[in-house]
């Protein structure tokens, strides 16, 4: 009798453990996955030299070179200051863009245009605008407010040799967002989106797709993607955004000390 109870107990324990494992495996939901994406370590500061190639449907390329500095200024609210300087081509050289993220209101944004000879404040509420003629919008380049969307884990599958979660995000307030919905393939290992489908707000059809084009590697202890392509499926135009290399080293650094003056009107006007 005792032996029978023991066996039953062991079986029950085993079932419980296995059941617990299964519950853990299915317990993770879309929201939690996106929270892990949001909470992923991206460094307190970032500095990179990047290339941005605008490629039309005929394969003609318009290359740009830009340098980005980004610094977290509020850890609790995850607010950043960002500055982008365009170095090439000549027609937009020394164009500088400064963004200071705000909580609960539109970001402060300014652009310095050498042809204008002065700084111009621009609306942070027009995040759906194309970033310098690319297929990325200003909002595409920013992290989203996690609470602004409903999430659903659609499936798990392998994509490009990565085990991924496939998560659908639908905005709670569609009028304020640029897409009807997005579907993201998030790696289980790194919690990095390796593919994102963007659905048009009006037609509800798939119209833009973002895919990573490089391996995911660690730089300064932080998982990093070095090349991303955003494609407009309607027009066939693509934008390749990538970190530049010098002597086989990526020109990207995390957690470096960036002087606050880099994000000031003085630097925006003078570049120094």
């Amino acid at each position, binding site marked *: 009798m005792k032996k029978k109870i023991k066996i039953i107990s062991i079986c029950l324990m085993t079932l419980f453990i296995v059941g617990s494992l299964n519950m853990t495996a299915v317990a993770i939901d879309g929201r939690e996955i996106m929270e892990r994406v949001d909470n992923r370590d991206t460094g307190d500061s970032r500095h990179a030299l990047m290339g941005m190639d605008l490629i039309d449907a005929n394969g003609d390329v*318009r290359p740009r070179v830009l340098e980005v500095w980004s610094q977290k200024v509020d850890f609790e609210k995850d607010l950043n200051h960002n500055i982008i300087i365009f170095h090439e081509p000549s027609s937009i050289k020394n164009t500088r863009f400064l963004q200071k993220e705000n909580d609960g209101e539109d970001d402060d944004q300014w652009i310095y245009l050498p042809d204008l000879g002065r700084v111009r404040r621009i609306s942070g509420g027009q995040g759906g605008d194309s970033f310098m003629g690319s297929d990325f919008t200003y909002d595409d380049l920013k992290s989203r407010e996690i609470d602004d969307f409903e999430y659903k884990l659609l499936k798990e599958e392998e994509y490009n040799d990565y085990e991924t979660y496939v998560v659908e995000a639908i905005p709670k307030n569609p009028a304020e967002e640029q897409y009807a919905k997005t579907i993201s393939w998030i790696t289980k290992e790194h919690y990095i989106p390796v593919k994102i489908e963007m659905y048009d707000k009006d037609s509800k059809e798939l119209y833009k797709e973002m895919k990573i084009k490089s391996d995911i590697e660690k730089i300064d202890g932080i998982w990093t993607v070095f090349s991303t392509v955003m494609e407009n499926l309607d027009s066939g135009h693509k934008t390749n955004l990538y970190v530049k290399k*010098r002597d086989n080293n990526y020109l990207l650094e995390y957690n470096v000390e960036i002087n606050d003056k880099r994000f000031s009107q003085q630097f925006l006007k003078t570049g120094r």
Partner: protein
Amino acid sequence: MKRKVFKSLVFSMLIILCLAIPAAAFDGGGFYESEVEELEDEALDITGELEPEFRIFSDDGEIDENLTGNLKFSYPGKTHEFKVLIDFQPGAVEEIEFNELYYRYFGKKYNFLIGKHVTIWGKGDKVHVVDNLNAEDMSDFINPEYKDRQIGEEMIKIDRYFRGGNANLEFVYTPDFTPNRLAEDPESPLGNWVINPFTAQLSDLTLRKISTATNQTEAEVISQVKDAAADEDNQFGLRFTDSRGGTDYGLSYYNGYLRTPGYDKAALNAKYKEFKAGNSTFSSVLEAADLHYDSVDVFGFELARVIADINSRFELAYYRTDDTAGDDPTVRNNKIAWVIGGDRDLPISNLNLNLQFTGEKILDDDQIENNILQGSNVDAEYDEDGDYTTNRAILKLEDSYQNEKIIPELTWIYNLNDNDYILEAAVDYELEQDLILTFAHKIFRGDQDTTFGQFEDNDFSSFSLKYSF
């Protein structure tokens, strides 16, 4: 006396603005600039633009070839910058000109600049009322962009930064004063843009008549009028700008001169009668007219803020001349001037709508009306319609296609008082990197004695190719 006052002001400002810490180079660095520094041969940055343009005038089918461009040499060091900007435009009053030539030092909290430079003040979008330090080159009327029309002025400029670089106090002193430059030679490639300097005063005082009467070319007549105005010197400007709580704002002060000359209308009328009768020379007419640049203090305020997704802009300026009472017919009255407007993206295609209003109100206009001599009003600012407030609307609609490869633009500049306007439709097409083809058609409408109506015969279509390197 003026020079002594300005010299002491200069020294005072230098002391105030340079009191801070000894300058230190801005720390940190960029990947791109360090890469350039490694390539020592390329430390000198040479850039420029070349833009050949063909204009076909609707009135007579005449085709004008035009070539503009600039060449910029700069040594863009971290703490030192040396820049030379050479502009060229055949047919302009100065066909080849060093428009900028300066040295600038970048300190931690201040910058120091000496040399020929273009400084633009104000939050307006290519239209300003607080931007008074540089003259405008109107050789090609207002066909070039605002910044391209600015004439470099030799200056000392000191910028002092506060609040981590977000607030800025600027001090500018220029030893010279340059008046606005108008097209001079009707026979030159830009001859279609010659303005008769006497249009507003005497309807029969045309350039052609004076040219015939004085046995000079029209270009020589214009040059003679220009030389008759007394030279002035010394300009001083001070501006504070800051950005707080979503608002960029600024306060400014300018001491210098109005760029359009004032004159003695009564004496001009009297002497012109003698000249018409053959009893006087044109030189004595100009001498009697007493062409001069009125000294002025300008107090300015500017503001920019995003309101309901509209990039809103505002400038307000109070111009104070020596004629504060408003009763001196030879000196312009005080006035206030403004720019108000903004731009917003529309939810159609990639449309952006940009609308601004600029205008001015001449103060003490009742005094202007009272300046009567021998039954005629002799005030240089007298308006027959009693209209001393002017308003101009500037509307721009811009769209973009194929990832900003094609940019169509419609611009309408309309003077509300005189109902004259310019309407321009243009399309930019990026043929390849740094090479832009532009097609445009521009029309001028209004009465002959209005700002834009005087060029009613100058409607033109153009195509140009702009290469940047």
